[in-house]
């Protein structure tokens, strides 16, 4: 009897393995193996037909740290993350509050906010070209109306990164709105009534009741926004190509450029490893946070 049960258990375990195997195999092939292979290749020099690649230790990493482009690109990405994350979260929250309020034409408002989410980043960049074109673009036509001189938004170092950031926020905010919207719909309306009876104004209610209740959503959105600040670079291909003079170059674009425009994959691999380390830190932090929350429950 005991043996039968054990046999049954073993059979089930085998079955479970077999079911998971195809997905795990593919995942190993395209996520785990390449992550390790990237690290391995980042330790070798770039091979040419004349000189085969040799082991170089951490030289590629040292080269990166010595390259002034590295500092520029990392700094750009920090600004990119530092601006897009909080601003799109704030926009998302405001949008959700409005899209949840009883206002006329609410479904129009909701779709208007959400529409950028379903557009390809490449298409979004094309749409915004129309705004940024110097002199003739929509922005310059408007500022020109007030007597300002035309600005080459995408072509000058001071404004290129900001222009890219605006497009990202435009694309992201509506997506994050959805999660806030979902969370808002689970908050009982009695709460607002109770707060009002207690004499809490709208601002107090938002700050003291709503925001704390929305905290789990904010964490979720925050983690997504962090990942996006690494991932969302498609529009650079259309808008600035990282220029002028690296002013709007972001890490992933730089990796692409090193690997596929300059064919320097060892340095691209080293940069990839640094990004993976940063993402790993985010992952660990999130798992910690989630764990804390479940303990609390």
């Amino acid at each position, binding site marked *: 009897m005991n043996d039968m049960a054990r046999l049954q258990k073993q059979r089930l375990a085998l079955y479970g393995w077999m079911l998971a195997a195809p997905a795990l195999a593919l995942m190993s092939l395209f996520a785990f193996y390449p992550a390790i292979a990237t690290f391995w290749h980042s330790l070798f020099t770039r091979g040419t037909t004349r000189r085969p690649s040799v082991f170089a230790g951490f030289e590629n990493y040292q080269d990166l740290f010595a390259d002034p482009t590295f500092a520029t690109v990392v700094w750009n990405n920090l600004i990119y993350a530092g601006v897009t994350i909080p601003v799109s979260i704030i926009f998302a929250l405001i949008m959700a509050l409005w899209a949840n309020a009883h206002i006329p034409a609410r479904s129009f408002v909701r779709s*208007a906010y959400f529409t950028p989410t*379903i557009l390809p980043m490449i298409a979004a960049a094309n749409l915004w070209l129309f705004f940024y074109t110097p002199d003739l673009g929509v922005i310059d036509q408007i500022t020109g109306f007030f007597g300002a001189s035309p600005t080459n938004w995408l072509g000058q170092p001071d404004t290129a990164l900001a222009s890219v950031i605006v497009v990202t926020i435009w694309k992201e905010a509506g997506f994050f709105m959805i999660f806030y919207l979902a969370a808002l719909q689970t908050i009982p309306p009695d709460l607002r009534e109770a707060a009002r009876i207690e004499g809490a104004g709208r601002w107090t209610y938002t700050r003291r009741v709503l925001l704390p209740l929305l905290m789990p959503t904010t964490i979720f959105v925050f983690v997504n926004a962090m990942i996006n600040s690494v991932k969302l670079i498609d529009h650079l291909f259309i808008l600035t190509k990282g220029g002028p003079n690296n002013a709007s170059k972001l890490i992933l674009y730089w990796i692409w450029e090193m690997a596929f425009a300059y064919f320097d994959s060892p340095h691209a691999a080293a940069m990839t490893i640094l990004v993976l380390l940063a993402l790993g830190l985010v992952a660990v932090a999130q798992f910690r946070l989630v764990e804390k929350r479940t303990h609390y429950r």
Partner: protein
Amino acid sequence: MNTAFASHHAKRALPDFDKVLDALGAWVLAIVWISPLLFATWAALQPSGTALGLDFSNPLTFENFTYVWNAVPWIGYFTNTVILVTLILAGQLVLCTLAGFAFARFEFRGRDTIFILVLLQLFILPEVLIVENYAIVSKLGLFDTALGIGLPYMASAFGIFLLRQAFKSVPVELEEAARIEGCSWMGVLWKVYVPAAKPVYLAYALVSIATHWNNFLWPLIVTNSPDTRPLTVGLSLFGAPETGVDISVISAATIMTIAPLLIAFLIFQRQFIQAFLRAGIR
């Protein structure tokens, strides 16, 4: 009592000042938010060369659309995208269903550790691993094929996670009933779990379609012919500013690229938003 009633009544008759402000703010933001789309649509309908003048007196024309249609193998790109998206979705549904079922209902050694590894893949983005994945796809002989673009996305950690959660919430009694009736494990999966997770499947499918319809960087890297290139890559080659193409022509191309998904979104708006909601709550 009387005054209270009166003030309540007055509130009804006169819309709240706050509410008017809310509505105004919401509308202004909504119009600002879709204005890039509106301007591009308008630009696409202008004779090329004049679009940026913001001159509303010009007659509307479809010549940009016909120009783009003839200049680019659009039908080909469109077909490539549809094939790609279908292929990825099919692969994801099969692989994630099986793996999600394994993680939800089977006990095997190392299951929890492996599941954490799967979750970790949410952070190891395929986009970041482009250098090595390009080498792998080339070695497999899949460079410039739909399978080469799609394969890295098929074992989706997100899909596995989502379906595992859905399967876990199915009451075990349902499964036991089916087993008493003589269903095999595959039968149980197909007759009990899959139907129960239908809304999750719908949500996941919509998110997957939207994601891969829009994906750009990876397809750019692993394609180099019009026979496999998806719409986004085609659009980027066509619309790059240095090609000197007129902005109204670029707008027309952009509108043509986004139209299918946009129209689908406008028709199935509610389902779409619901789907994204469901997929996002984890």
